[in-house]
Structure formats: C-alpha cells, structure tokens
C-alpha cells in the first residue's frame, strides 16, 4: 500500500475530502443499516408503524377535509388517493428533513471520538425515511387497487420527484444540522416548521384551489409545492393540477440552497467537536 501523507493545519481544507467520502461508502451503508435496524427495536408492531401512521393520517384527512370541510379533489381522482399521494411524498420529505437536521447531534458520541467525513451523518439519515417511503408506497398501491386505479406512463417521472424531494430535504436539513450543533433551538424549531409546512403545501387539498388567486405567485415559491404537485401528477396519470412554474422554483431554490448549505456545513464541520 502506498503511504499517504496527511497534513493537519488550522483552516486547511481537506485535500482528499471527496475522495475520502467516496471511500467511506461502506461506512455510509453500515451507518444507514444501523439506523434502519434500530428504528423499530422493542416495538410490538415493528415496521407496520410505517403503514399505520400514513393510513391513519389519510383517514383523518378524508374525514375532515372531504366530509366536513367539503374540499374537492381534482376531477377524475378519488379524494383519498389524492391525499395519500400527498402524504406519501410529504412524509418522506419531512422525515428526511427532521432526521438530517438532528443527524450530527444524535451522533455526538461519534463526532467527538473518531474521524470520518462528517457528511456521512446527514447522508445516512436519509436511509430510514427512504425505507418508510417505500413502505408507504405499498400502502398507496393497495389503496389504488381498492379504487381500481391504474397509473399510466406518467409514472416514469415519479423517481425524479422523489430524488428532488430528497435533495430539498438535504438542502434545508444540512444547514440546520450544522446550526443544531451550536444552537439546540433547532430541535424546537423543526417540528414547528414541519407542522406549518403540512398546511402550506398542497397535501390535504389540490393546488387547483390556489390557482388564479392573488397569492399564487407567492404560494408556488415554496419548493415543496412543485415537488408534491409533480409527484401527484406522475402518480395519478397527469390528471391533477401542476403549475410548471412551481417546478422551476423547486429546482432553482433546491440547488441554490444545496450549494449554500454544503458550503456552510464544510465551513463548520471542523469545529463541531468544540461546540457539541
């Protein structure tokens, strides 16, 4: 083996950072597996929680918004399917976002005891929500069969929106994960943001309700609007409302925030130990 020389100096950017990150992919896998296998330890219902929660949320939504508030679904789409598709991608985003935000602090014991590329922590935090997402998709398929609903070719776009949701979660989560090290206020803030987001995004209702209103141009600046619309659109055969402009916002904001967050994280990561 060729001996490599490492130079440690204040403020010196790690020369081999991305190479080290790539070499640590096994560790990434193992950390992800750890989170997944620990997730439902000592629960009686185990992984079925990933089914129960979205199913229960969907039933409540259907009751409150469809039967009580009389919100309408997009034409030709059963309301429960519309809600469930929204919940599926939103839950994925919000879980990933929450877990990424707390990823550094939950791994505090590792940060202060061993060196590894710090980006592995937020990266591995996505795994659990990804598994949950896949399980919820199974639920969606079951409900879709119940309504005798068959998706069409739009489905091929679905993975793109999932990836976009993941990148957005990463863009925001990464920033908060670094801030969380210094200011634990983040732990209070995140659930609150997620709660607001649930109503600010077209989950229980169709964004068609917003179309044409004076605040639409602000509404679609929320990057999640485009992602949820797009995911639903691809899943429900293009019958739901999709404002292409909102997608432009989603992609644009995500990439700008992602670069800023990455820069911020890398700037901060060397001092994590001093603050944690």
């Amino acid at each position: 083996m060729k001996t490599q020389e490492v130079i440690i100096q204040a403020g010196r950017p790690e020369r081999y950072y991305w190479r080290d990150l790539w070499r640590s992919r096994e560790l990434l896998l193992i950390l992800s597996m750890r989170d997944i296998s620990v997730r439902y330890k000592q629960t009686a219902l185990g992984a079925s929680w990933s089914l129960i929660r979205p199913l229960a949320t969907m039933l409540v939504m259907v009751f409150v918004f469809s039967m009580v508030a009389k919100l309408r679904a997009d034409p030709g789409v059963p309301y429960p399917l519309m809600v469930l598709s929204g919940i599926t991608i939103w839950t994925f985003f919000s879980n990933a976002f929450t877990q990424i935000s707390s990823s550094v602090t939950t791994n505090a014991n590792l940060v202060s005891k061993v060196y590894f590329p710090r980006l592995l922590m937020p990266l591995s935090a996505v795994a659990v929500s990804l598994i949950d997402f896949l399980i919820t998709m199974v639920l969606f398929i079951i409900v879709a069969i119940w309504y005798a609903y068959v998706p069409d070719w739009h489905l091929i776009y679905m993975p793109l929106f999932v990836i976009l949701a993941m990148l957005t979660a990463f863009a925001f989560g990464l920033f908060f994960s670094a801030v969380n090290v210094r200011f634990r206020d983040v732990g209070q803030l995140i659930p609150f943001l997620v709660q607001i987001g649930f109503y600010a995004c077209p989950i229980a209702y169709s964004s068609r309700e917003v179309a044409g209103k004076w605040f639409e141009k602000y509404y679609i600046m929320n990057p999640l609007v485009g992602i949820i619309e797009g995911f639903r659109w691809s899943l429900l055969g293009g019958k739901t409302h999709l404002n292409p402009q909102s997608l432009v916002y989603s992609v644009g904001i995500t990439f700008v925030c992602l670069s800023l967050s990455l820069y911020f994280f890398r700037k901060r990561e060397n001092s994590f130990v001093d603050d944690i």
Partner: protein
Amino acid sequence: MSVITVENISKHYIIDHKRGKGSSSIRDAITHTVKGWFAGPKEDTDELTHEEFWALRDVNFSVEQGDRVGIVGHNGAGKSTLLKILSKIIEPTSGSVKIRGRVASLLEVGTGFHPELTGRENIFLNGSLLGMRKDEIKQSFDEIVAFAGVERFLDTPVKRYSSGMYVRLGFAISAHLNPEIMIVDEVLAVGDAEFQKKSLGKMRDNSASGRTILFVSHNLTAVQALCNKTLYFERGQLIEQGETNQVIASYLSKVARTRLRRQWDTPEEAPGNDLVRVHRIELVPEYPDNLTHIDVRTPMRIQFEFWNMMDRANLNLSLHLYSLTGECIFNVGSQSQPYGKGLIQGECVIPGYFLNDGTYTISVMIVKDTVTPLYNMEEGITFDVEDYREGVAWYGKWPGYVRPQFPFRVEALEPIIP
C-alpha cells in the same frame, strides 16, 4: 524516518462565563448582539467575561517509525487534545502536523457501539468507523470473537452484555486493526487484569512488526512496560521528552514538588468570604528514604491555614477526600472549638498503606457551630498516589480506593494425611 512531525501546535479555547445559566441559545445570541448595539462594548464585557484557555501551546516533537511513545501528564495537561488533533477530530488553532501512513485512533473502547445492535452488527459498525474495510473485518471476524471470548453472545444486543464483555469486544476489534500508526487513549484503564495483560501483549506484538504507537495512560507501569519513548505534558506544554524511564522519573519528582502547596499571602487575594479566608493548603508527604514521589506507602500530612475574621466563633474543619471520578472516599472532622480573630492552622494525617494508587482531590470546609458551613474550599489540592508493590508478580490495576494492610493471618491447620 519520522512518521509524525508536529510543529508549533497550539489549541486555544475561549470560555464564556455568562451570567446565569451557560446555555447557548439563539435568544442569548440575539440579546447579546442587540444589547451590544445599544450599550456599547463596555457593558457587554460586564455581562460576558471571556477566559482564554490554551489546551496546547507551541508543541513540537517528531515520532520515528516503530517508536512506541508514551504520553504522560495530569488531567487537563493536553494529552487528549493532542491525540484528538492527531486523529483529525479537532482542528488546531495554529501550527501543523504531518503524518505519513494510515492512522487508527482508539480514544474509546467500542466507539459507536449501539446498545440495541447485536455483537455481530457492532463489530462491523465499530470496525468500519475505525477505518477497516468490510472484507478486512470479515477476514479477522473469527479472531476478534475468539479474542473477546463472546462466541455465545454474538447475536445478543450489546446492551445485555456485562461491562467486561463490552470492553473486551471493543478492544478485540481495535486490536485487529492494521494501521501503520496507532493512537491509543487510556484504553487499558478498563477491563479486568487478565484482559489488560492480554491487550498489552497484543499491542507489543503489533509494535514488533514496525508499527508506530502513541499511548496515553495514567498507568505509569503500563507506559514503562510498553513504550520506549515518553512525552511529558504539563498545562498544555511539552515539558520533557526522551527515554521512558528518565522522563517518568522526572515526572514523578516534579509532581511531588509543584502541585502540593497553594498559598495566598494577603487576605485580599485569598479565596473565601468576609468571615474566613484561606491562607494556605499544603500536602506534606513524609517520604521514606530517597523517595521523591508519593506512592501507596507514603504517609501524608495535610495542613490548612485560614484567617478568621470573626471575633469569637466556634469553628471546626471538615476534610473530604474525593476520587478522580468525584466519589467521596472519606470525611474527617476536627473538634469544634472557640477561636478569636487571627490565623488558624489545622493538620490532618493520612497514614501510609492506606490510599490505593490513583488521583485524589482534597477539599476543606470551615464549619461554624458544627452545622453552618462558612466556606468550602473545593478542589484544594489534587495529588497522585503512585503504585508500589513488592513480592507480587501481577501488574493489573489494584482494585478499590483504599489499600490497607490489615492483619491477615493464614496458617495451615492440619496436614492432609494420605
């Protein structure tokens, strides 16, 4: 060829002493900034005092390939900070380090062990955190399991392990790392004696194969057994380096001289309050011939002098001795007596063959009327008791806080008649 070159390494912390709770929240940060705008910088320093602290200062040394370097010094001398800098966990404030070769650092036994995961899963988790590849772990898996002796519990969550098993598994994994440079912090402080011996042997075998080892330990016996060179740190500075025996000898004699006395010449600068102020606290060891450090045989006198500012008061002294981990080992109180204004001296004698080897802290409390504490001098003196044994061929950590030599009679009652 030197594999580690450390040049002018310093690590600097700023400690904030905030009023009230030291919690750091966004609200605090905002209020401080806002107050700063309105009140100007002067008020701000009132509110928030910064204290500079150098964990390491201008440290220079280099390590040759195959060296086994011991690092000794008191708690807070900067040993762990140095290891963390070498392990890339923390960044130095200034200076540079050059390292040639693959480094594995072992700052903790079983880093990243997750209590819910099984022994098997944790071997892979810990191994890859320490930088092993999956195929390397697979290759030495059976050896690790055998070394730790946990075959039967491989699929049990480690939270059900006894602490001994946990430590053995953790060490076994790290013993099978294959780096060119190994950094080890206090790992041998845990585990039973037999396992320590096994681990020390394993580390010595490793170094025979040309591996470089950096080893921090409070156990000077272990450092002497393992290391050919030693660095001695004191308050963030490298005081001495060289041959192990030489450095350890001067470390021990220095400890005895410097740390055992604290004195304040005038009541104004002395710690205390309006009623009483501390003049001097000193630990006076009574060395048996030609010994220069405290070991388990050494009797000690603890002297404590304070100014009494009250006209007439019934006072007594209460002396606590704490272990390194903060447990109180004993508390001795003096008789309560009336005293007038002036300097008062108390002395307490700790006999030899009483304390076990370890680090201890003495605090002295001045009590009025046997119930009202007037002043408690916490962490008055911290001192080390070194190990000494005769006629014992065993080098594990002697258990317990005290090591008394109570009369222990053993005799043969009657021979077995075949």
